[in-house]
């Protein structure tokens, strides 16, 4: 399964089937820090991803001292 990561933009392979929580764990993210996006929607934490899925893991923190 292809996973798009951001900041900087890069792609990694993660073997499926795998749960969102397990995938984030493997990539070193906590689920509160990111959104998992597929197409134009979000995937909830309890979902399973299949090997043919393409998802983006997008961090949500922004650090500007506004």
């Amino acid at each position, binding site marked *: 399964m292809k996973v798009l990561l951001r900041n*900087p933009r890069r792609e990694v392979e993660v073997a499926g089937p795998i749960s969102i929580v397990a995938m984030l764990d493997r990539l070193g993210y906590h689920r*509160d820090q990111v959104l998992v996006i597929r197409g134009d929607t979000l995937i909830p*934490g309890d979902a399973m991803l299949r090997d043919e899925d393409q998802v983006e893991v*997008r961090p949500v923190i*922004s650090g500007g001292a506004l």
Partner: protein
Amino acid sequence: MKCRVCRGPAIIDVRRHNANFCREHFLRLCRDQVAKAIADFDMIRPGERVLVAVSGGKDSLALWDLLLDLGYEADGLVIGLGIGEYSDESTSYAVAYAEAKGVALQRIDLRDDYGFDVPTAAHASRRVPCSACGLTKRHLFDQAARDGGYDVVVTGHNLDDEAAVLFGNVLRWQNDYLARQLPVLPAGDGFPRKAKPLVRLAERETAAYCVLQGLDYVVEECPMAAGNRHLGYKEALDGVERSSPGTKHAFYFGFLDRAAELFASGVAEGEGKADLGRCERCGSPSATEICTFCRLVEQAAGAEPVALRPRR
């Protein structure tokens, strides 16, 4: 995972509300939270004209979209900060949104209009970039509101931002900042009212809002932000929030309910309200003959432009 409202399949969990939501009910949650913040703090009154400080990031675009959705007359202003590619990309998202929605977006470019950019100004004035950037943005938004006859300037500060700023102010007991850390600041002395309608939304929620509404925003971080204190405070609070969801909300709204007034009343009558004169150069309200912004422009004017390191 089921939606708390309709029991349909959920697409997002919001741990601080201990609830999951489907698309429709998540979007409604966002609108309701913004409407509640506006009403609770009397941020915008019916018929008022709103100027949105747009950056091209998730918060300001979500804010603009939510205000338009709630029926407010809201125009945008975006400032090209001259922070390399990051600024160009940010501005392009703001422009794309305005075009798609057919709403008015005013543009200022620091290089073209004022002859400097944030990295150069920071270097020349020996300020940290966020300080030079922040004072520039505040000045230009205030001025644009005065010139354009707007009643209120709104910014995209979310709950995570406000909790982090509060945390920093408390750690250092910055009484004067604590006295003014409010979701709305009244107009006065030539300054427009300032409001933060996103204070009831966390940044994960504003990001989710953008994804679900199909709003493209700049995901990359400002290269000047790395390692700033604000980010450190955010990370520290994130650690607490993770083990105890809802802590940020309790911290920030507890402050507003129970402590903000104590700090505000601690500022002696009239203090900070000394009749402001006008800046000799730009006419903005200012305690000094030349305002901080005009001084920054002057300092940056002769300076060699600072080159940004190319992005990774």
